[in-house]
């Protein structure tokens, strides 16, 4: 199956809702709106011809210089046709919301919790959306670009030795 066939099939089923983003490494990347994402994901998995049954990854990226700051990125793999697809959804900050993908693949559970933990993306309909990797009482979302890498409350680092 070629990327062009996949793109045509998607655009045939979802007219005017799928935009292709050019990718230099031949991985079909499409841009979808947040209202259509669940339908698109469900179509990808359940369609008899496509059968994208393996959800590889869900993650997010923070672009503070763009109008829509957050991008949730899905990497999905069709084992039968050996073809991958990348689906991107851009969301407005600072409290981005998107419907959950756990209704389509059960494996999205922890991936969405990790994305919530790092970026604060709220997955509507997730069965158990709470922090997974950071401490439970943390109130910031550390992977956002405004949050620093080092612990800001550290008192024993001498600025002189660290060039500050």
């Amino acid at each position, binding site marked *: 199956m070629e990327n062009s066939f996949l793109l045509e099939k998607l655009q045939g089923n979802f007219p005017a809702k799928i935009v292709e983003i050019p990718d230099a490494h031949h991985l079909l990347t499409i841009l979808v709106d947040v209202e259509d994402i669940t339908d698109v994901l469900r179509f990808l998995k359940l369609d008899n011809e496509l059968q994208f049954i393996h959800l590889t990854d869900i993650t997010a990226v923070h672009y503070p210089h763009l109008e829509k700051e957050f991008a949730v990125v899905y990497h999905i793999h069709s084992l039968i046709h050996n073809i991958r697809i990348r689906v991107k959804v851009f969301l407005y900050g600072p409290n981005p919301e998107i419907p959950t993908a756990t209704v389509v693949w059960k494996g999205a559970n922890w991936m969405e919790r990790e994305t919530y933990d790092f970026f604060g993306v709220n997955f509507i309909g997730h069965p158990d959306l709470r922090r997974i*990797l950071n401490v439970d009482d943390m109130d910031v979302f550390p992977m956002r670009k405004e949050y620093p890498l080092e612990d800001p409350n550290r008192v024993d680092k001498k600025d002189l030795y660290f060039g500050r």
Partner: protein
Amino acid sequence: MSEFISKITSNQPVFEDNDPQDELITLNIGPTHPATHGVFQNVVQIDGERIVSGVSTIGYIHRAFEKIAEHRPFYQITPLTDRLNYCSAPINNMGWHMTVEKLLEIEIPKRVQYMRVIVMELARIADHIICNGILGVDTGAFSGFLYVMQEREFIYEIFEEICGARLTTNIGRIGGFERDFNAVAFEKIREFLKRYPPVLKEFEEMFVRNRIFIERTSGVAAVTPEEALDYGWSGPILRATGVDYDIRVQNPYCSYEEFDFDVPVGATGDVYDRFMVRNEEMWQSLRIIEQALEKIEKEPQGVFHAEVPDFYLPPKEQVYTNMEALIYHFKIVMGEVDTPKAEVYHSVEGANGELGFYLIHDGGRSPYRLHFRRPSFVNYQMFAPMSAGMLISDAILNMSSLNVIAGELDA
């Protein structure tokens, strides 16, 4: 009386429980584990020995790799990737280098690719040694683990000969290796190919037809392929359920398509199948290493990196004498080299499954965003739903056969 016996033999409760304190006990397994599996916690509710429900808590070794990677140049991220799956660190290193080479569109010479294959397969054998050995320990068979750990020491010696470090290897550079494998390294690899098969055979004989082991592991935690795929499983545990998804075959990288090896596939996905799949993968890895050694001899000798002066540091002798080499050295270290602004997702077959690197680069010195698709993380989320209804000892074996490495789980 026979009704009594038939109730016992069919595992049904025998006596009426008139105890008014009819409640479930909450048991906390972890995060400090007696079996040295790693730091993750399971709070389970048990009814006697049977688990009714469980909740996993992870993050006890969250080291914020993805955040650190946004502040480091490419060559400094390699030591970070070491510490993801620290039992098979070279696979992580090679995967990362291949991701960056895919981004920078660098072509790697064949000899370097074969050297990478050797290193990756040695690391795969090392990881499977730990997993199968610890599975044996969890069933009570300690000796097997000690026998094969000695072979792991020999693999450490090979890694030391190649790069200087035993465990967190930081092997290779973007574009190849930092130095050629010397004659001692090749000698040690050949000796490993001679001395490991008898030990593996002995280890196999202790477990494969061992009645106690079979009764402990056969039928425990069987998984259907549909469920496994729905949860995003990959690697030996997915192959144990019957799905032959191996990235080395499906999306070959690093010339794996030139090698002749089988992909072992199980039938039911239970713990015994997972043990057997990993065991057979070790034999296949030995085959691959033998073929790689033969192929390396046919290639022009002495080539150990690609000719990319923009990204591969020149030798120090030249830096001190040659102006061009000095400029390249400066540009690489200070990050003044032009790099394409692109995104790339590359995955390799790690010892636990599909290890993926999603790299978004904006032309600067460090990545804009680097995400690790970690197989242990994705595989482990099924553990809590799967353990409902199991005995505690079976759940421990299940956890042990999933081979969850804590560094990869939390990243």
